[in-house]
C-alpha cells in the first residue's frame, strides 16, 4: 500500500529496522525529546498568555508600557490566529516524537492499544469542531457586514434621519444576533426564528439561522468537547516516563484549543460549555495553559448569564459600541447635535477599525482552521498506516 505522499515525507521510510541496536540510544534521545517538547509547550503558551509588548514608537502617547495593544489581547482575532500557529507547531513536534524512528509494533501494544484509539477518536471530534467553528466565523462575518452598514450610514455627512434609521436597523439586527445566538436553536427552516423587532427590513435573524450550515442534527459543540475530555488523565507510574506523557500533553492541548475556539466563535450549541477542563494545575508545562483557561473561563461565566454570542474580543467590543450607538440613534433628530455627533463619530471610527480588523483577519483565520483540519486528517492517516504496518509485522507469515 502506498504511503500517503506529502511534503513531510513518509514516516514509514524513516522507521529503522534494526530494532535492537537503537533501543538503548533511543530511550536517552526520547527522554531529551520529551523534555524539549514540554518546554516548547510551556514557552509557546506563556507567550500567548502575556504577549511581549511591541517596541514603543516614540510618538505614540496612548500606549503605556504595561498595556497590550488591543489587537493582541487574548481572544482577539489576531491572538486566535497565533493560537492556531501554536497548535500546528505543537502538533508537528508531537507527530515527530510519536512516529519518527519508532518501531511500529510499539504503538500497537498496551497501553497504546487503548491510548492510540482514544486519541484518534478525539481527533475525529476535533475535525467536526473545526468545521463548526469555520461555519461560526461565517456568522461573525455576517455581523461584520451589519456593522459595516451602520458605519457607512453613520459616516454620511450631512447625517440625516434616513441614515440614522438605516444604521439603527443594522445595529438592532446585530445586537439581537449577538444576544440570542446561544438561546436559539438551529432549526431547519422558516424565517420566523427571530423576534418581531428584527424581522422588519434587513436580513432577518431567522434567515441567518436558516442559511447557516449545521454540523449534523443534534450536534453540540459543548458535548463534543466534553466527550473529548473522557479518559483524558495524566499517565501514572512508569507510563509517565514514556510516550504516554506527550500523548496526554498533545491531547490536552488539542482539547484546550478546541475549547478556546468554541468559546470565541458562535458555534452550534454551546450551552453548557464546561468551564472545567481537566488541565492538571501542578504540571509545569501546563501553567500558562491554565492561566489562559482561567482568564477565558471568567469571561465565559459572565457572558453566559447574559447569553452572548462569543468571546471573540472584537465581537465583545462590537456589542458595546453597538449598544451605545443605538442609544445615539434613538435620541437622534435632524440636524445632529454637535457634541453627541462628535462622540458618536468617535465610536463609529472605532467600529470601523474593528470591521477593518475583521476584514483582514477573519478569512485568514478560517483558512488556518481548515489547515488545522487537514493536518489532523493527515496525521490520523499516518498513524493508521503505522498501525497497519505494525499489524503486518507482528502477524504470523501467511
Amino acid at each position, binding site marked *: 500500500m502506498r504511503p500517503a505522499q506529502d511534503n513531510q515525507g513518509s514516516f514509514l521510510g524513516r522507521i529503522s529496522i534494526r530494532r535492537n541496536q537503537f533501543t538503548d540510544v533511543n530511550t536517552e534521545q526520547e527522554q531529551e525529546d520529551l523534555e524539549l517538547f514540554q518546554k516548547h509547550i510551556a514557552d509557546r503558551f506563556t507567550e500567548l498568555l502575556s504577549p511581549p509588548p511591541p517596541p514603543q514608537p516614540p510618538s505614540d502617547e496612548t500606549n503605556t508600557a504595561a498595556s497590550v495593544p488591543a489587537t493582541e489581547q487574548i481572544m482577539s482575532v489576531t491572538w486566535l490566529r497565533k493560537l492556531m500557529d501554536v497548535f500546528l507547531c505543537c502538533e508537528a513536534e508531537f507527530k515527530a516524537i510519536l512516529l519518527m524512528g519508532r518501531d511500529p509494533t510499539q504503538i500497537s501494544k498496551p497501553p497504546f492499544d487503548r491510548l492510540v484509539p482514544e486519541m484518534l477518536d478525539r481527533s475525529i471530534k476535533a475535525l467536526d469542531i473545526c468545521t463548526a467553528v469555520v461555519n461560526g466565523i461565517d456568522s461573525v462575518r455576517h455581523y461584520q457586514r451589519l456593522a459595516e452598514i451602520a458605519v457607512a450610514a453613520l459616516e454620511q455627512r450631512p447625517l440625516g434621519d434616513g441614515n440614522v434609521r438605516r444604521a439603527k436597523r443594522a445595529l438592532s439586527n446585530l445586537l439581537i444576533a449577538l444576544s440570542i445566538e446561544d438561546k436559539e436553536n438551529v432549526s*431547519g427552516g422558516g424565517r420566523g426564528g427571530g423576534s418581531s423587532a428584527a424581522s422588519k427590513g434587513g436580513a432577518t435573524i431567522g434567515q441567518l439561522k436558516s442559511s447557516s450550515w449545521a454540523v449534523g442534527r443534534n450536534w453540540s459543540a459543548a458535548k463534543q468537547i466534553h466527550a473529548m475530555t473522557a479518559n483524558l488523565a495524566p499517565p501514572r507510574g512508569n507510563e509517565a516516563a514514556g510516550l504516554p506523557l506527550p500523548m496526554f500533553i498533545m491531547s490536552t492541548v488539542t482539547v484546550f484549543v478546541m475549547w478556546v475556539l468554541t468559546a470565541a466563535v458562535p458555534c452550534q450549541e454551546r450551552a453548557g460549555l464546561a468551564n472545567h477542563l481537566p488541565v492538571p494545575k501542578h504540571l509545569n508545562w501546563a501553567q500558562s495553559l491554565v492561566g489562559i483557561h482561567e482568564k477565558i473561563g471568567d469571561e465565559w461565566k459572565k457572558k453566559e448569564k447574559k447569553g452572548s454570542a462569543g468571546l471573540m474580543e472584537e465581537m465583545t467590543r462590537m456589542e458595546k459600541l453597538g449598544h451605545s450607538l443605538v442609544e445615539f440613534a434613538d435620541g437622534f433628530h435632524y440636524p445632529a447635535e454637535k457634541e453627541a455627533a462628535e462622540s458618536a463619530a468617535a465610536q463609529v471610527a472605532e467600529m470601523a477599525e474593528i470591521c477593518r480588523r475583521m476584514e483582514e483577519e477573519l478569512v485568514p483565520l478560517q483558512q488556518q482552521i481548515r489547515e488545522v483540519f487537514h493536518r489532523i486528517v493527515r496525521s490520523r492517516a499516518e498513524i493508521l498506516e503505522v498501525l497497519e504496518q505494525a499489524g503486518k509485522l507482528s502477524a504470523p507469515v501467511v
Partner: protein
Amino acid sequence: MEKPENHAMESETLDHHKSDDHSDESEQQLATETPKSDSSQLSLTQVMEARFPNGRTIPGDGRFLGLKMESSGLGRDETADSAFILAVNRISKSVMTLRELRLDSTPVSSWLNRASSVQNRAASLLDEEFRHLLDRSREKNKKNNNADLSSDSTHESDRCVLQEEETFPDFPPESISTLEKIAGAMISAGYEAECCMSYEMSRRHAFKEELSEVGFEGINVEDVQRIPWESLEERSPAGSRSSAAAPPCFSPASFLCTAVFSSDDHAATRKRLFTGLVSAVTIRFLDFSGAVVLTKRSSEKLFKFLDMYETLRDLVPAVEQSDSDLNEEIKLAQTRLGEAAVTIFGELENSIKTDQGRTAVPSGAVHPLTRYTMNYLKYACEYKDTLDQVFQTEPEQETRRNQREDDEEYKVSAFGRQMIKVMEHLDANLEVKSRLYRDPALRSIFLMNNGRYILQKIKGSTEIRDLMGQAWTRKRSTELRQYHKSYQRETWGKVLQCMNQEGIQVNGKVFNAMFDEIHKTQSTWIVSDEQMQSELRVSIAALVIPAYRSFFGRYKQHIDSGRHSDKYVKYQPEDIETFIDDLFDGNPPSMARKRT
C-alpha cells in the same frame, strides 16, 4: 404583501406621517426658494431642472413615493411598481448630484435629510419585496415539485439550485427582470450591502434546503464514520451515475446572480456574490468528501468516491472564475479521493488473489467471484475517464511500464492497465480453482463457462472492450476454443475411438457404457451461456452422430436379425441426438426418456 405599516414600528410610522404633512410645504419651499446670499447662484429648482429636464420635479417624486409607500406596496401592479422604481432611481440620482455639488446651504441639507429618509423607507420596501420574490419563487416551485414527483425533469432541475438552465426554471423571466430592477434601485440608493445580504441569505437558504431534501444536512465526520454505508450513499449531494446524466451544475453562467446583477456597473458585486456562493457550495462538498474519505476503505465505496471526485472536478471552472481560493483544497481533496480509489482497487486485486475456496462450484458453473469481479469492473468502466485520471497520478513500477510500452497490444490507458491486472489475477485464480475438479472434462467446462462469461461481459460493453483492446479479446476467444477442444478430446475421444474399432459386441457394449456414463454425469453439468450450450451440443453432435450412424449402419444387419440386438446397440442415432440435448442442463436425466 404586507403594507409598510404592519411591520413598521409605531413611532416610525408616526414620524413618517408627520414629515409627510410638512412635506408639501417644505418641498414647495425647496422648489421656489432662491438663496439670498448670491444672486449669481442658481436656484435649487433651476439646478434640478438643468439636471433633470424631463420627468417630474424632485419634490413630486418624494411625494409620490410617500403616497406609494403608504398604500399598497409592491408586487400588485407592475406598471405602478416600475414607476415606483423609476422614482426611487431619480431620487437617488438627485441625492448623488446634490452631494457632489456640496452646496453648503440649509435648504439643501434639509432636503437631503428628507431625501435620505425617503430613500431609507423605499429601500426597506424594496428589500422586502426582493426577498419575497427570491423566496416565493422557490417555494412555489417546491410545491409544484412535491405534487409532481413522478416527473423526472423537474426533479433533475430541482436537484441543484445552482443548476439552472438559461431560463432559470425556478424564476420566470418577469421575476428576474423585477429582481434586476430592484437590485439596481437599491444599489443606486446606496443600499447595496442590504441587497447583497438579502440575496446571499436567500440563495444559501435555498441551497441548504435542497441539500436537506436529499438527506444531506450537515453531515459531520463522526456521523460518517458511524453510519452504515448504504444509508450514506443515498444521502450524498453528488449525482449518481444511474440516474440521467447530471447536466453540469456549476457553470458560472447558470448562477442566478449573473441575471439579477447583470449590468456592467454591478460587475464587482456580481463577482463577489458569485464567489460567496461558489465557496459555500464547494466547501460543503469538500467537507463531505473529506469526511467520507476518512472511513474504512471497502470496495462498494469506490463509486461514491468517484462521484465525489467528479463533482469536485465539475466545480473547478466555477471556482476558477470566482475569487475564492479553493483550488488547492479541491486538488487536495481529489488527491485523497484518488488515493482511496487506488487503494480500493488494489484491495480488489488482493481479494481476488487470496480467494481460496476448497470446494469447487458444483457442475462447473460460473464462479461467484467471476460474476462479482466482472460486474464490478463493468460498473467501474462507466467511470473510466475519471479512473484514468486517478491512476495516471499513480506511479507504476518501471519495469512493467517498459514492458508494456514495447508491446503493441498494451498501448492502453492507465486504468486499462489496472483492468488487465485484475483480469490476470482473476484468470490465475480460476486456473487454480479449475484444478479442484478431478475430471479433466469438467475442468474444461468450468474454464469455458467462466471464460465465456468474462468474454460476454467485455463484449457487452463498448467501454471495457475498447479499454481491453481487440488483441486481448481475440486471445480470450482463442483460449475458449482451446478449452472446447480439450473438452471434446477428454470426453469424446475414447468414445469415438471405440466406434472406429471392429467388433460390434464389445464395442457396442463399451459405447453404451461410456455414453450412458457421460449422459448421466454431464447432464448435471451446467453451461450457463445459452449460445455456448447450443454450440457445444451441436459440435458434439457433429462429432458423434455421423460416427455413430456409420457405426450403426455397419452393424445394421446384426440388429435387424433381432438377436440380442439390445445388448450391443441400444440406441438409434436419433436417440443419441436427443440425449446430447440433455447435456449441460444442470438436471439429472429422467430415465423415462430412454425409450422414445
